[in-house]
């Protein structure tokens, strides 16, 4: 029973029938638990998970219902993929970078200058997934619902504006990933790792002078209240995955599987990308009305940044190649797709 129980548990759990009598006849509602880490009022719940749930419900004529469990209430933020893979939930949705090492090639989108918007980035990431079996391998024990990216990450600072690489020198900057750590160090800044929940106070009190992140995270953590400057240079992207338990997927009728196949994948990736772009737009407005000054780096200025960031890109490629993965090929393709 070990391999079937997560399939069973995918079936209606709120009505009383035992698992034997359910499944086959239609007319029964199959209920799926969707676990994710974003808070309930977050755009990822409202405009991605709920959109997915209602599209699925509509397409299957109410035969499939998706119940959302937001706020990491069923599993830790870094446990969302595992929760979906093992059947703790039927579906899971989180940020790749919470599971370092687990998605080596997907992380190509976290490298600098991969694009500007979540919509474009998500399209690139999904295309890469379709093209490279090595990327598909990273999700081999689940059924991907979407792969998406945030809008590009920028530098946010308090008190001191950053216009050039030199300006960063000596600043303490909260960094989201080892890649960003690497180029911050290259530029003479001090990268600081801390929990996102602490960033607000850290910026306010001056424990750090700034932080790097996608613009929408300003709203997520109310950082627009404390930052003064935004330096726009498209330095990296956060990436997201939505996945479904394999047995739960198999437990659906063939027709329903086909209907859901239409929704998942490219379409949902686009929905997720657009949702984050809308949130980002909202964050830009909030930051501007809170008095933040935006500075967009020109192409000439960016040349200097690119030079400092090249080693990070090179070492990413080298690292993948040394473990037998097509790092160079994936990187080149990602650049090609994102400049199209």
């Amino acid at each position, binding site marked *: 029973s070990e391999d079937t129980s997560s399939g069973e548990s995918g079936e209606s759990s709120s009505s009383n029938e035992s698992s034997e009598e359910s499944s086959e006849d239609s007319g029964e509602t199959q209920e799926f638990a969707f676990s994710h880490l974003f808070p309930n009022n977050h755009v990822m719940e409202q405009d991605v998970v709920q959109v997915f749930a209602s599209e699925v419900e509509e397409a299957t004529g109410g035969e499939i219902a998706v119940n959302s469990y937001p706020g990491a*209430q069923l599993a*830790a933020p870094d446990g969302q993929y595992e929760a979906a893979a093992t059947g703790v939930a039927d579906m899971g949705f989180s940020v790749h970078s919470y599971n370092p090492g687990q998605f080596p090639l997907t992380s190509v989108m976290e490298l600098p200058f991969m694009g500007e918007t979540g919509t474009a980035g998500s399209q690139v990431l999904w295309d890469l997934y379709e093209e490279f079996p090595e990327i598909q391998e990273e999700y081999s024990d689940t059924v991907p619902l979407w792969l998406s990216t945030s809008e590009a990450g920028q530098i946010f600072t308090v008190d001191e504006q950053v216009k050039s690489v030199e300006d960063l020198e000596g600043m303490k900057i909260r960094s989201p990933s080892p890649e960003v750590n690497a180029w911050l160090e290259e530029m003479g800044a001090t990268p600081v790792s801390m929990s996102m929940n602490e960033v607000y*106070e850290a910026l306010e009190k001056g424990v750090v002078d700034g932080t790097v992140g996608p613009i929408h995270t300003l709203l997520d953590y109310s950082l627009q209240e404390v930052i003064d400057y935004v330096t726009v240079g498209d330095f990296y992207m956060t990436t997201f995955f939505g996945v479904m338990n394999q047995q739960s997927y198999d437990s659906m009728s063939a027709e329903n599987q086909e209907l859901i196949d239409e929704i998942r994948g490219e379409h949902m990736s686009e929905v997720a990308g657009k949702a984050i772009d809308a949130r980002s737009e909202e964050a830009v407005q909030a930051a501007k009305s809170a008095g933040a000054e935006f500075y967009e780096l020109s192409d000439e200025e960016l040349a200097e940044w690119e030079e400092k960031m090249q080693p990070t890109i090179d070492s990413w490629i080298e690292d993948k190649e040394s473990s037998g993965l097509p790092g160079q090929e994936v990187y080149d393709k990602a650049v090609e797709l994102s400049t199209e």
Partner: protein
Amino acid sequence: MSPEIIGVLGITTLLILFLIKVPVSIALIIVGTAGFSLVRGLDTGFVQLGSTPFATSGSYSLSVIPLFIFMGMILSYSGFGQDLFRAVDSWLGHIKGGMALTTIGTSAIFSSISGSVNATTATMARITLPEMNKYNYSPALSTACVAAGGTLGILIPPSVILILYGILTMEPIGELLIAGIVPGIVQMFLFMIVIFFWVKKNPSAGPASEKSNWNERFKSLANVWPFVLLFLLTIGGIYFGYFTPTEAGAVGAFGSLLLAFLTRRLNGTKLIKAMSETTRLSAMIFLILIGADLFSQFLSISRIPVQITQFVNGLGWSPIMIMALILVVYFFLGLFLEGIAILVLTLPVIYPLVMQLGFDGVWFGVIMVMVMNIGLITPPLGISIYIISGVAKDIPIERIFKGVTPMLAAMVVAIILFTAFPELVTFLPNFMSG
């Protein structure tokens, strides 16, 4: 069985296990795992049982607990805590309940370093309980003071819970933190008033000591400087931006260790004792936190919290009645769940309702924290009391729960006061943010 029925059965089983002396943590682990298994299958219950212990014990925000405890242990074993109390005794000791008042006051000051109730309670328990014991304070009074004082940890900024509330609701975090100050101070005075009446009614609970002369008083102050220095170091470090409140635990422990060695107040044996007690107490607290996480994952999948909040949502009563009901619901959730779990499970449904009814979001955050504070010191899941019981092992836990009742009254009075006059909460943040 529907998940909701499994949920109710789970809560009942939990209470039975508590009554037959199964350790609180083990009971939570059993019910959490079994309940999750009943709803979603045994193998998934086992996945939760296998993954939660590492996730919880390796959580950065909780890692602050052992370090704050360590700081308290060092201050206690090196005799700094004793000095502080001697000094206080020479100034206030002739007043009945003087040390109890000091415990509340010191907790309030300590709350400006620590962002959590757990850390505040654990530190203060280690410093103050042995001393009050020496001065023949009744255990009921001394433990009640520590429990009550500890709850100030999340009202007086910094506050982990208020920041999380701000993140979940998008209410301005800066204003939330400032909004906690007045209620924190008022709550502190209410606790002191309770102590005043307590020792008035029962003078042997907080015996007065002999009145000291001025010479003795100023002499005793000379011994307090290491304590003052440490407070300044940690408070200053946080407010001038050298470290975060989480890091303050480590810096505080390191600072106390250096001071204790430099002043030759600590030797190897005492240090080992301080370390050993810290790690044992931390182990106890974390096993309960692991159990609480497993239990809350189970309650969450049983959908009971959602059902309750939706029920409240659908009643259609007047705003103030609904608010009263919401606060009662939070009170009951607080009996069984840990604070962060309550926020995550209920805010999504309750917060929009509160907004719709026209209440102030900042005010609600503070009131909610005050209601959840009650849950920390009430059975069956009263984490503050468990922490105190870990330090004061000779006092039966039921007595601590019973002793804390007058403090609960002070907390209820504060909640009623700030619900009747919400401006008391909101004027300061409104003033500061212009």
